[in-house]
């Protein structure tokens, strides 16, 4: 690969270009999840009968996944701290733990969905369940994408390359965590 263009190295706004782009990415994600959740909330308020379906979500599993993601967020920010000190190998290790939590999240999710589907709560079961699967599914897709990208960043960080990217993937990861922080009460707690 050729060297970076001069354009990439300029920072007129006082923020590194990569971080600026990640923040814009987060803006575009805010409106995607925002549109989805706004649609869900207005339906949920307009359809009191959905509470009957919502009663069947398992708050214990949802809670477990909340803790998994919160902890993975801690590991991501610790990786950023390590990268900030220039300690690439430690950052890579912590990113690996973060990826481990991501995999755990997906396993728990797989178990949860299997249970629910086998009880007949499929995506077509009712209005609530279709939003449940779409919202959690899009979120899980973000987890998968984030974990894959984090894998690449980890490989680079291990060789002390591009340590700035540890922070960038961390920002994205915290955002995915944030979405779950709101999905948890919306889908599991508020019945």
């Amino acid at each position: 690969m050729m060297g970076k263009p001069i354009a990439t190295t300029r920072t007129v706004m006082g923020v590194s270009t990569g971080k600026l782009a990640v923040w814009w990415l987060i803006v575009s994600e805010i409106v995607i999840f925002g549109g989805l959740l706004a649609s869900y909330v207005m339906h949920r308020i307009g359809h009191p009968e959905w509470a009957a379906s919502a009663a069947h979500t398992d708050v214990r599993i949802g809670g477990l996944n909340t803790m998994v993601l919160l902890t993975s967020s801690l590991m991501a920010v610790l990786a950023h701290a390590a990268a900030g000190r220039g300690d690439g190998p430690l950052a890579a290790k912590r990113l690996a733990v973060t990826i481990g939590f991501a995999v755990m999240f997906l396993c728990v999710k797989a178990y949860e969905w299997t249970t629910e589907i086998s009880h007949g709560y499929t995506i077509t079961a009712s209005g609530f369940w279709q939003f449940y699967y779409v919202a959690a599914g899009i979120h899980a897709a973000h987890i998968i994408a984030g974990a894959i990208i984090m894998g690449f960043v980890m490989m680079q960080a291990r060789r002390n390359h591009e340590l700035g990217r540890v922070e960038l993937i961390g920002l994205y990861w915290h955002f995915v965590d944030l979405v779950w922080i709101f999905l948890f009460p919306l889908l599991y707690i508020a019945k």
Partner: protein
Amino acid sequence: MASADAATHDDHGHGNGKVPGALRGFLKDDHEWFYFQTWMILTGLFIISYIGPFIGEALHMFAITMVTAFGIAVVKAGLVIKRFMHLMDEPKFIWQMNATALVFILLFFFWVAPDVMSHEGANWGNQAGASITMTTHIEDFDPDVVWTERCATCHGEEGRGDGPAGTAIYPRPTDFTSRAYWATADHDIMATAILDGGVALGRSRYMPAFRTAFAAGHGGGHEGEVDTLPGERTEQLIARIMTFRPPPEAAPAPAPVAVPTREPTPTPTPEPVIDDTVALDGYGLIPGGEVVPAPAPAPTGPSEAELAARAQYIQGRVFN
């Protein structure tokens, strides 16, 4: 607040004096200890939001659940944004652009919600949405309340077929004060209409089916066990409707086809588009209750043959 926090932030400079001994191997400096403390706060908040619903249920206060669920979600989000994402350490346009996106989503919510959440207004009605809401499960059955909440929106408080949502529906909702209706109605027809909806009679599809709503259990969805409750409740509701029946006249009007609703469609074809046109022509704006002549084409309108040609054309257009 931001500055105070930034100060603490800075205090956590480089030493590791504040890290408890047990965690020294894991957390390399005070900075990381700060992150770990944040994580502990988040865990505590999570536990509160987890047990909130149990307290709310025990005290029968739904508000507690709402506060612990969403209030704490906002606090948790704030902590993650501030302490993990360091949003406040960036130039301020970063949070401004994120806040702008959020504002647009709020705008979307509040300007769309009137349409999606509400199902009727002064001169308009969202029949599809309303019929879904109307058929939500009923816990404590009181025929008067059910009449007001579920029936009167279309049939009117006085049973005249002039409820707010009813004025926008063709064919018009049944007018229970009309003698013409009672000339043809009987108990079974009314029970079928209430339990299985207008479609079961081949009449208006806007008349919803209340069988699930009247059923026992959680209602809605998948738990539609067969029980006797819907039948009993329907009897009560029919008794309520019977109060609108006018006293019989000495000489009842001879009414050959006197139901101001759509006639049953003989063929089981899927709801063709033409149906509505015919319904409009036949029953358009005639107030309910009057004896309606069989839908004959108006003298100035298109001829029978022309109508047939159009219908055939539309049929071809739809199913080609």
